[in-house]
């Protein structure tokens, strides 16, 4: 079964996957070189999050975890926006307030993520319920990992969605590892998908390293939700080919052999081979794509690295709509401290 996607669109999807892979590689390098503070990547999970995001319309909303970088790029978040965030500079829309890839842009309905696990899941249900109450035909999709399915908010969100039949797609990237714990330590269920049964709606398991299967499965769920058919849980079976983050060393808890097995199922290689077999992709296309995506990343890095830190007052703005007296006072104190520091 092949979904109906035009040749140009298939090539665009591959390009976003390649860009994501190269961005992940660069992000880790930048951290190792001490140029950014932290990196958390999506290596090996590109098909799952890019294929699913591709099934959404621009008016739909995404509630990410933090490992779905390609879905940001696909929805129109730019490399400049991302690299400014990585370098936490003065042009970062979040004013350098969050660690790498905890990011969102309102104009593309991509909600700013956070580090606590699964807290975004009830939000996706709330936004879907709000849209349903207002009669707006939008769908919300939330990403989370296998570890998140142990959390209260996963069960709460699923339960509310079942009760109110909200237009929500619960998209679990089962990458087999929650930092050092294998999925068997998160659940005794045979699969994650079957958990949906308990909440009164459908759960589907899909090969998360097959971008076309992911796309088609998500598209079906999104269309069902838009027509009033309620939520779906999708379990995309994939693998975290990299460390949890730049602060993690997976050699401590998993075997090289396991990684090698999954490297044979690398979603990027699989999709490229598919395109090659279809005669849509050549060695020259590959070279050009690698060159272009890396050059785009280079440019965004060069731009972001030159910029200064966010202004001092951004420490105090956006806590409230208007700065209350105590924050104004603390800002004045900090400014005075800086002035005295400059005088000395």
């Amino acid at each position, binding site marked *: 079964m092949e979904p109906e996607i035009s040749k140009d669109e298939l090539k665009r999807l591959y390009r976003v996957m390649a860009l994501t892979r190269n961005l992940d590689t660069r992000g880790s390098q930048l951290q190792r070189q001490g140029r950014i503070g932290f990196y958390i990547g999506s290596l090996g999970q590109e098909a799952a999050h890019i294929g699913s995001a591709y099934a959404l319309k621009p008016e739909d*909303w995404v509630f990410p975890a933090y490992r779905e970088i390609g879905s940001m790029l696909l929805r129109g978040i730019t490399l400049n926006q991302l690299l400014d965030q990585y370098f936490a500079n003065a042009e*970062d*829309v*979040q*004013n350098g*307030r*969050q660690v790498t890839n*905890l990011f*969102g*842009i*309102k104009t593309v309905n991509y*909600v*700013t993520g*956070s580090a*606590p696990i699964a*807290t975004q*899941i*009830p*939000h*996706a*249900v*709330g*936004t*879907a*319920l*709000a*849209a349903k*109450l*207002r009669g707006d035909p939008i769908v*919300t999709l939330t990403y989370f990992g296998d570890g998140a399915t142990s959390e*209260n*908010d996963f069960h*709460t*969100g699923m*339960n*509310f969605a079942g*009760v109110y039949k909200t237009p929500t797609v619960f998209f679990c990237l089962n990458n087999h590892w929650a930092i050092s714990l294998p999925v068997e330590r998160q659940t005794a269920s045979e699969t994650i998908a079957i958990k949906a049964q308990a909440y009164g709606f459908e759960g589907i398991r899909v090969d998360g390293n097959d971008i076309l299967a992911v796309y088609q499965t998500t598209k079906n769920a999104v269309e069902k939700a838009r027509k009033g058919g309620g939520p779906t849980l999708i379990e995309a079976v994939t693998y975290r080919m990299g460390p949890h983050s730049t602060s993690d060393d997976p050699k401590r808890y998993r075997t090289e052999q396991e990684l090698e097995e999954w490297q044979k199922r690398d979603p990027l290689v699989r999709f490229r081979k598919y395109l090659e077999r279809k005669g849509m992709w050549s060695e020259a296309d590959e070279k050009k794509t690698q060159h272009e995506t890396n050059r785009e990343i280079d440019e965004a890095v060069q731009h972001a690295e030159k910029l200064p830190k966010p202004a001092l007052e951004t420490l105090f*703005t*956006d*806590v*409230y*709509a208007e700065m*209350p*007296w*105590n924050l104004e006072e603390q800002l004045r104190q900090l400014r005075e401290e800086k002035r005295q520091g400059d005088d000395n």
Partner: protein
Amino acid sequence: MTRNDKVIILGEDVGVNGGVFRATDGLYQEFGPNRVIDTPLAESGIIGVSIGMALYGLRPVPEIQFMDFIYPGFDQIQSELAKFRYRSGGQFTTPVVIRTPYGGGIRGGHYHSQSTEAFFAHTPGLKVVIPATPYDAKGLLTAAMRDPDPVIFLEPKKIYRTVRGDVPNEEYTVPIGKANIAREGNDVVVFAYGTMLHVAMEAAELAAAKSINVEVVDIRTIIPFDIETIMNSVKKTGRVVILHEACKTCGFGAEIAAQIAERCILNLKAPILRVAGFDVPFPYVLEDEYLPNATRVLAAIEKVYNF
């Protein structure tokens, strides 16, 4: 709710039943099931779903049945509700008003009596409002529902039924962040809020009989608190008693005392005294011994007056 169709009420038993304290009585009948929504029994879901609704532009007013049950939703309040504006650089905002009955005096034991406003006051990004009179309850709630920031709105449950006051039918607001001088006096100031305002007023009457002229300030908004009114009353009287029913250690009274010490210690004629709940889990049968009463407050007033 008539004025703004984006206002949605949600919570346990808030619909058909009108809330266990009848706070939402009649709203389901008037506005229907799409505006007044009965939810599953899950506080993190009530608050998390409210956040999602607010992100979409609605004005959810969730009810948590008792403040004692808010903790499954604490992660949502602390990690999400309070931080969305900041972490997104002002792109995403979550103007949710969480209403919840708090405090003792109804023979409710540990789990229907606690007063833990300090947890929320310690979280930047939240506003914490505690009315003490029917007039302020309406005016502050209306202000909270029009506020661009998330508000924890604590309703003193003892006075749901014991305090009566005139409430105008027409719309009005009471500004968030402004204390109210409930009684003017020159000798001693008592700072209080919620149910304890009425205890402070009673103690002030008892003190008046002993010719001690007590000023009582209703703090009304814990965050952001009205530093100007607080300092003016301290400068005027020089003698301070701080009253709350929450346990003493790290209670909000400690913050008021520290602010006074930082700003106008030389205006003080006596040590600052706190009258508060004891540092124990909220009791059941010994509730009357636990809760500050007018006699205990009067003793503190006399102590600072005679210092």
